[in-house]
């Protein structure tokens, strides 16, 4: 385990050093990553400032959902979601083979070499929004914090699952970076209170495709009014993680090297 952490840190350090070759561009990219993620909160703020609301939700409650969602993405993006672009790029260029001959698992090496330093901006943005929204709401109790932390761990596990599925797709769907847009479009529902969607759609995003677990489910626990189907969402999240691991392995078997 210690050895793995050391390897991961070396990968992160190398990625950071390589990105620092264009320092100004790196810092600007990081800042922009932060701003880009703020699009949905900005729309929410504008809706409320123009006198409209999401029925039953105050502005800061809605922002808390988005804060949780962006915090999850902010942790995933730099630390492990890089497997997506890393896999797609390597398969396209023919350098994916290099990961397969290393004395570590391909998945681990794809994570290590996929550290995305500029996405740390997303982490800063998510943390800021989460803290800001929470500071304007009644402070949750210890029990709520504990439940939230457990659910948030599952949020990260589900995001990891999405990363595995997208990276797996990248193995057979050569060079298609638009898988990111598929992910964004599906998970976009997680940025808003699940209650604003129709009942069938709420069921789909809670109990079929784990989307509500990315924002709405953990945030409502923190607000002291857990969403309907929270337990089911936990089960679906765990199943999704197992499915994504299986999917990754299945796609890996389908990988056909271009030689080199």
């Amino acid at each position, binding site marked *: 385990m210690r050895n793995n952490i050391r390897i991961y840190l070396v990968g992160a350090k190398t990625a950071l050093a390589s990105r620092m070759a264009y320092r100004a561009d790196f810092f600007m990219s990081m800042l922009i990553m932060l*701003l880009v993620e703020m699009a949905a909160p900005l729309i929410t703020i504008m809706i409320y400032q123009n006198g409209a609301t999401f029925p039953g939700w105050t502005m800061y409650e809605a922002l808390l959902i988005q804060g949780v969602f962006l915090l999850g993405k902010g942790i995933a993006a730099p630390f492990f979601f890089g497997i997506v672009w890393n896999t797609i790029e390597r398969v396209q260029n023919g350098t994916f083979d290099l990961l397969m001959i290393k004395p570590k698992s391909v998945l681990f090496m794809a994570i290590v070499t996929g550290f995305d330093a500029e996405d740390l901006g997303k982490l800063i943005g998510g943390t800021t929004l989460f803290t800001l929204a929470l500071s304007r709401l009644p402070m949750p109790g210890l029990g709520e914090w504990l439940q939230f932390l457990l659910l948030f761990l599952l949020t990260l596990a589900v995001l990891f699952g999405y990363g595995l599925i997208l990276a797996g797709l990248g193995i057979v769907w050569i060079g298609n970076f638009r898988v990111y847009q598929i992910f964004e479009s599906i998970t976009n529902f997680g940025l808003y209170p699940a209650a604003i969607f129709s009942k069938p759609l709420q069921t789909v995003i809670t109990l079929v495709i784990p989307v509500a677990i990315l924002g709405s489910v953990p945030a409502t626990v923190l607000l002291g009014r857990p969403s309907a189907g929270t337990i089911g969402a936990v089960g679906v999240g765990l199943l999704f993680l197992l499915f994504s691991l299986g999917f990754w392995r299945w796609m890996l078997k389908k990988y056909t090297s271009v030689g080199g």
Partner: protein
Amino acid sequence: MGKRVTVGQKIGQWMRVLKATAFSTYKEWVAYRSQMAVTIFVGPVFFLTQIFIWRAVYAARTTLNGLTLEQMLTYYGIVAVIGYLTFDSADWDLQWLIRNGSFLTYMLRPVSYCFLAFAQKIGHRLLALWVELIPVYLLFIYLFKIDLVPAQPGWAILSLGLSFILVYLTNYCIGITAFWFTKTEGLRRAFLTLRDLSAGMLIPLTFFPKGMQKVLFYLPFQFITYVPTRVFIGHYELAGISLSIPQVVGLQFAATLVMFAVAQLLWYFGIKRFTGVGA
């Protein structure tokens, strides 16, 4: 004595280059049509989110900032369609060519890079027309029941055409900055974010505070999405200023000319900084 080329012959030559470049780009991208077709899934799914957001917002009201729910959804439908029609990656393409040095080969060609890249955009978007735009347009009309018929078709087509050129010129200007900065990913993202926000792609510009709307009125970005969308709807208003459709399209035309001049100026200074090795 050299043979004199008439203006008509010159235009004919340019049109042949445009047609050949657009056609070869079209053929090149046909190989990646499945990537483009992702839009048929992504576009409607994003739009579905908008439907639920705005239905919730309009649950207790009939209008918001002068727009009804139907008008709001139409706005987002048109914004999506304009996006598919005018999209290009001139900024990324040019900075990539400059960074890896292969831009040198374009300097040896008897056609300007600006024209060549524009012809490539035409070819690329022609493919997108039937792979992305028409399917999504039909889905919006028949699945989501969104009225996507322009109020004044002639003016709408003209405005969309100007938006098509304007998007290209603004992206091209960002690409030119690679002559100074080499890697422009950060600047590119910063610009695109500012552009999308100021162009009304995320939310109608009338949602911004009044003071901000006045600033946005004088920026060129509104002519990229907000103006063609309002021309499509048949009514223009921003910062309390209402303009007739011919007036606002006239302003859009002026903005396109200004952007062309800016691009030429940037190119004039930027090209002097280019140093290519090998080739």
